[in-house]
């Protein structure tokens, strides 16, 4: 007996179950997309270990030099290493560099008029 004929015995209950799951997943993902969209307007993008310093500077509308200085790296806008890579080179955890960058951004926003 093939798999198909074995499944066809429970065809209708399986179809009803799959139909309900499809409706539920539509509402779940639709709601989640809407919730994220509402937060986009006022929340700053969190710094991720994959981001490079110029990338973080762009996302937070600041100059990369300030951020490079905050993590003790010679400022170079062409330095596109990720934060994780820089952390590995400095032998510190990426979370520490992210905290330093975050502090520098907070200090910058305090200076802004």
């Amino acid at each position, binding site marked *: 007996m*093939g798999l198909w004929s074995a499944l066809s015995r429970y065809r209708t209950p399986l179809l009803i179950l799959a139909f309900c799951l499809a409706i539920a*997943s*539509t*509402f779940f993902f639709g709601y989640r997309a809407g919730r994220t969209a509402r937060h986009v307007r006022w929340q700053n993008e969190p710094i991720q270990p*994959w981001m490079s310093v*110029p990338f973080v500077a762009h996302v937070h509308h600041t100059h990369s030099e300030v951020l490079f200085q905050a993590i003790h790296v010679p400022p170079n806008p062409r330095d596109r290493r990720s934060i994780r*890579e820089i952390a590995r080179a400095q032998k510190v955890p990426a979370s520490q560099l992210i905290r330093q960058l975050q502090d520098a951004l907070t200090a910058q926003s305090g200076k802004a008029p």
Partner: protein
Amino acid sequence: MRDQVLAALAHYGSPALFVTVLIAAIGVPLPVTLLLIVTGSLVAQGAMNLWWAIAIASVGQVAGDQTGYLLGRWGGKKLIARFGGMIGHADRIRQLDERAKNWGGAGVFFSRWLVTTLGPWINLASGAGGYSWLKFTLWDFLGETFGSALYIWLGVVFSDRVEEVGAILGDLTWAIMGVLAAAILGWKLFYRHPRAISTT
């Protein structure tokens, strides 16, 4: 994996973009939509050229899709001959083949950019089902170019909100998949076999 891929893109640019989209198009689950949005952000930062990025992403994805199609064409028939009995009799397989041919163009086009999770499966199914290579390539190229341009452009516009935009698009894709699945299942339940419901 996601972080490594995005870090490679931010560091190496076009070569990383090409390799990643090619591998993803073959079927390895990688965050291609987010990757294209981050590419758009890099374009906005002046690290990449817009047209070059769209071209690289399209060509890489088409190359991966062609690999999937050829795998389906050469390996698919053998697999169906060996395991075909599990999904039904020869009539049922012929029926599936016919359906793939009828819906081929639209299926290929929309799975390139709207329901991207289905893309690699449609590549294999198109190859195994004997869907015309020329038509497949045409719809594939159109879909991938449109999808790449769309997501890279979104990345340019929302260049400072890449993670959030990626998350929204990911959820929307699954919501659309849910709507499609509900429509197909609903049609099967209420129109094709309405008696089955009334007897349950």
